[in-house]
């Protein structure tokens, strides 16, 4: 069996366990997915019975799980309790905004991490400052950082818009870019903190290897050794670390999009949370987890294809 096929065979049971956990979580609610209606005095008991039958909630739990899983795989994710529209539709319309925000902040974080990581691997002074910065970046509450930046740059200085994706009127490119600055900064800070330390570590490791010493002996300058040899060595594991952090990105996007009223999937999630819109919440959790599993699958397959050493090891 090829590596990709074997790796995919591992992903399937993983996805099944995830689906069981997510399904179990929603059905742990007193009253199950209908608990929202149970609290509402305007919904009559016979309506609840009718809804239960319509949604298949009167069937045994195992049968419910199987039919839910089957329709999830088919892309039928049910209807939002909040406005009755298909969940798939509500989520799809939010995808572009999230991809834009997460994509741009990932690129920014990668560029910053490479710069800071390489600097820290080469200079002691940079390393010291970078390690303090990284611990700070990992420790700051994301939503508080967002609120403070809004307060400073939007309300006090008036340089940047505080929320949304574009102004209602006259939304040109500059306006859209201005709206991106704060949310991208907040998301990038958290990622760059961890990633820069990782890159510094792997560049250091590469610099201690015989090939680096051989290059030094040939009289190659340290800068050139770092940029041409050590960094190349470090980039592949770095790329997998970035892909493997998708789970943290999803959490970060939820918080950042809510603070900045960014109209993406993350703010759809918090809107759904406030209304206890379980079909949307469940679909979000499943999609995010499937994306995480898929990205780690891609990372493994890519490393296997690009790095011959991993093939010999396995």
């Amino acid at each position, binding site marked *: 069996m090829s590596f990709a096929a074997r790796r995919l065979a591992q992903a399937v*049971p*993983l996805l099944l*366990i*995830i689906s069981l*956990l*997510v399904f179990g*979580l*929603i059905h*742990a*609610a007193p009253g199950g997915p209908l*608990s929202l209606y149970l609290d509402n005095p305007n919904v009559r008991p016979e309506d609840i019975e009718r809804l239960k039958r319509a949604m298949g909630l009167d069937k045994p739990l195992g049968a419910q799980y199987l039919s839910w899983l089957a329709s999830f795989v088919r892309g039928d994710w049910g209807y939002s309790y909040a406005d009755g529209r298909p969940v798939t539709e509500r989520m799809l319309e939010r995808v572009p905004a999230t991809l834009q925000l997460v994509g741009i902040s990932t690129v920014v974080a990668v560029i910053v991490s490479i710069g800071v990581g390489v600097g820290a691997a080469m200079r002691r002074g940079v390393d010291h400052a970078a*390690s*303090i910065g990284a*611990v*700070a970046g*990992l*420790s*700051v*509450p*994301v*939503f*508080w950082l967002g*609120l*403070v930046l*809004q*307060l400073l740059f939007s*309300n006090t200085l008036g340089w940047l818009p505080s929320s949304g994706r574009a102004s209602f009127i006259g939304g040109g490119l500059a306006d859209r870019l201005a709206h991106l600055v704060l949310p991208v900064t907040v998301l990038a800070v958290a990622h760059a903190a961890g990633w820069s330390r990782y890159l510094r570590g792997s560049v250091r490791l590469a610099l201690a290897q015989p090939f680096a010493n051989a290059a030094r002996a040939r009289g190659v300058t340290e800068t050139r050794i770092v940029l041409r040899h050590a960094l190349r060595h470090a980039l592949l594991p770095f790329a997998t670390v970035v892909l493997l952090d998708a*789970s*943290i990105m*999803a*959490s970060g996007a*939820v*918080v950042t999009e*809510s603070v900045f009223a960014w109209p993406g999937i993350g703010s759809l*999630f*918090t809107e759904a*949370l*406030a209304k*206890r819109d379980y079909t949307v*919440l469940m679909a*979000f*959790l499943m999609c*995010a*987890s499937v994306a*995480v*599993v898929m990205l*780690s699958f891609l990372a493994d397959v890519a490393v296997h294809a690009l790095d011959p050493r991993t093939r010999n090891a396995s």
Partner: protein
Amino acid sequence: MRATTRLPRQAVIAGATLIALVVLAALAPVISPFAFDALDLAHRRAGPSVSHWFGTDELGRDLLTRVLFGARVSLAVGFVSAAVSVLLGVAIGATAGWTGRWIDAVLMRITDAMLAIPRLPLLMIAAAILAPNVAVLVLLVGAAGWMETARVVRAEVQSIKANDFVTAARAVGAASSRVVVRHVLPGVLPTAAVATTLAVGRGILLESALSFFGVGVQPPAASWGNMLYQAQTTMTSEPWLGIFPGALIFLTVLCCNTLGTALTER
């Protein structure tokens, strides 16, 4: 030898700050300048001043007092949830590493699955469904944080298991449980200590995020997170209500992470 095992200066400062925060929180009823829910209607929404160092909220309650009392909840959630996470992580990791075979395979697949589900949204849904009191919230946050510890502990137990002293202990007829408790788990202690320090910070961050979204600690109880939840709508007019609780979350988590990093590098 002593000099090399001493902690770096920033870790000592971080540890001292943490202890100071815990002492201040414990003494909150004694040292706070006002009663927890004392109203000062003449000084509502007042900025920081000599009498109210951190200012007052919309009911004229002293923010410094509320931050001190909030520290009790936030720190308690951080420390207890960390203990829950690490105990779970050590138990699951040690079981997987020691027994091996299918038990190991099953436990590690569950660990992978839990790691793949984004932690904060998962906790937010769980908290929204269960509407927990502080005790249940602590268990939830703890139950969401054992996976990293379990993985590291499993790897360590596997390598300790291969040592001669373990083989010797089994050879003289020691029961499996005795070997694990007396010979294997002590070797895992340093890892568990680091994991606990980092888990305290993570627990405080998670609690604050849950409370910030209104599904964590509920008023009238105060935690740093739910103080921010109440402050976010008035951030422009009364910024101190949000700045101080958030700064304390930042400071506390910073201390935990500095300490944890220093312990890892030793």
